[in-house]
């Protein structure tokens, strides 16, 4: 693994989370275009992030909680059961 690979792996989370500077983004992108092994790692880690989001977004608030919140602003708040 070359220096560029190591540097890319260090920046990978920041890249996936869109936390890098424009210059760093360009650098990572250029390396991923050139280096299939790093690109595969990137694709996998990005998919893991999507997976966590997708799996956890299936739990919506129960209807009674939603209704309780809606009424909070219009009525005197009272403990709900």
């Amino acid at each position, binding site marked *: 693994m070359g220096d560029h690979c190591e540097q890319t792996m260090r920046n990978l989370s920041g890249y996936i989370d869109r936390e890098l500077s424009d210059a760093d983004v360009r650098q990572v992108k250029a390396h991923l275009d050139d280096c299939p092994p790093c690109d*595969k790692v990137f694709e*996998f880690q990005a998919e893991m992030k999507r997976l966590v989001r997708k799996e956890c977004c299936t739990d919506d608030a129960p209807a009674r*909680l939603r209704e309780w919140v809606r009424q909070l602003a219009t009525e005197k708040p009272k403990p709900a059961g």
Partner: protein
Amino acid sequence: MSSDFSLFERHVDALYRSALRLTRKPEDAEDLVQETYLRAYRYRNRFKPGTNEKAWLFTIMTNVFRNRLRQRPAPEDPIDAPGTDFSIYDQLRREGMPVHLMSPEEIIVDRGFGDEVKHALEELPIPMRMVVVLVDVEDFSYKEVASILGIKIGTVMSRLHRGRQALQKKLWEYSGRPKARPVAVGAH
């Protein structure tokens, strides 16, 4: 000055699903969200219009949650100590799986890694779990998470890194449990 409370109402699903990951129990999650909204309502005049109301609500909720934990202290985890590197991808590669020929979706489906994400997440130590939930599920920036939890950005990054690795390790362990497993693809 009073804020339009409907601005806050729309985040009830986000707060609830995160509360569920933190408390692991629907009734506790519901209770946590209610207390969060009661406080948000009580202190609504402290919210600065035009700032991020979702981050404000999550700050309240994580504070309420941590106060509750303090009343029932759990054993302290060495959460900020460096851990061993772990990634599912490297592990599969080491096992000789042709991961370079597979799409990430194929890898995940093939070994059933997607089935127990919630369960794995709920087993992470709470400080790591909070950071992973806030970044990966709620899409907050590192800076926002640092502000919500009152920790440094460097701490956000290290907990996120270690939390994601720990999550993959849990998923790896679960996937090794005996169960009906499809034949590996890529062998043709």
